[in-house]
């Protein structure tokens, strides 16, 4: 764990062979690396070796390739403006949906929720999103259906939920069946059979940030006992 602006010396275990990947939270400065955010330093030995800093934030900064949930705020000609929680609205062309042609336009209204990924996202340009992947298939992206509940959590919780074999999701799926869409911009959309079940899931997910694993198991046991 590190403060910032400190000169780090890599431990002897990290053999610097070949190229070392520098992830979020680290910057190259001169001959060494500078830590720019506070958090836990993580290391992945696979491939060429990667270092990054795991930090907790609530504000999202668009990154290319991230899957996010956006809210349509305006239709400007051929392009939709989406609010993704960053510093400027993202743009989404109406042709970037599966099976969309000039004659066959997708039915998108202002206020709809869209799940897509960034194809352009750097600090100098306006971010652009698409709802198809590189082969032209939608693979789960597109307009999110009616009903359901959208809420915002911190980015650290999102990363925890998106990790493979996340315990929270497994435990929740034993409670009730539900649909879940997780956006890397901190937004989660949930839909269960009744409004009450949806709200229960929302409350558990929001509280997961501050609960330890035992507290969570206790809360879920209390709920499934009812």
């Amino acid at each position, binding site marked *: *764990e590190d*403060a*910032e*602006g*400190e000169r780090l010396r890599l431990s002897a275990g990290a053999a610097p062979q070949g190229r070392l990947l520098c992830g979020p*939270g680290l*910057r190259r400065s001169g001959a060494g690396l*500078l830590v*720019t*955010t*506070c*958090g*836990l330093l993580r290391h992945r030995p696979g491939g060429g070796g990667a270092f990054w800093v795991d*930090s*907790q*934030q*609530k*504000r999202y*900064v668009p990154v290319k390739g991230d899957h996010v949930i956006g809210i349509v705020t305006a239709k400007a000609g051929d392009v939709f403006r989406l609010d993704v929680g*960053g*510093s*400027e609205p993202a743009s989404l062309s109406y042709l970037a949906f599966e099976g969309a042609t000039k004659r066959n336009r997708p039915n998108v209204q202002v206020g709809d929720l869209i799940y897509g990924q960034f194809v352009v996202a750097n*600090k*100098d340009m306006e971010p652009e999103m698409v709802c198809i992947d590189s082969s032209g298939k939608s693979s789960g992206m597109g307009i999110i259906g009616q009903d359901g509940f959208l809420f915002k959590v911190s980015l650290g919780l999102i990363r925890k939920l998106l990790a493979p074999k996340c315990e929270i999701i497994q435990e929740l799926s034993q409670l009730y069946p539900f649909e879940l869409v997780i956006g890397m911009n901190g937004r989660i959309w949930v839909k269960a059979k009744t409004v009450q079940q949806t709200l229960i899931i929302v409350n558990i997910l929001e509280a997961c940030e*501050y609960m*330890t694993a035992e507290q969570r198991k206790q809360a879920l046991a209390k709920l499934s006992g009812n």
Partner: protein
Amino acid sequence: PGDTSVLAGLYGPAEAKVSKELPDRAALEVLLRPKVGLPGVLERSREQLLRQTCEAVVLGVLHPRTAISLVLQVLSDAGSLLSCCLNAACMALLDAGLPLTALFCGVTCALQPDGTILLDPTARQEQEARAILTFAIASSERKVLMATTKGSCSVEEMQQCLAAAQRAATTIFQFYRNSVRRRYSK
């Protein structure tokens, strides 16, 4: 010590107004609200000092055409207010995860009429002192980011105060580290 408290809130990088956006870096703005009354000239000058200190550490080039707003609300004032604001600003920047090149902390020194140096004086000690110096000290090699003086003192006395402040800065950085560690241990 212990009675001055400032609440800091940081918002950003958010959309900036076209009149305020800078093409190559983030536009940082600081708002300082006193406990009672409307913000006056003293608050404005402190806001500018804080803004220049923060701009020196924040990597604004990573977020061009955005606005970063820091809002500080004084909850209680019992002396050493400016350094309390500096510490609150640094913790807010840390907590929000904004990219920084270094951390900074604020230390106030009061120079008594008999020449002794008091660190982090209370309001009464500030009034009796001959001069009050506030330093913002960076975490990398304890460099001085900002220095402001009220009253008069000689150059040697200022050097002595600076050395004492740099030593005190270590304690404050340790406090930052402990707070962050507690937060990430959950």
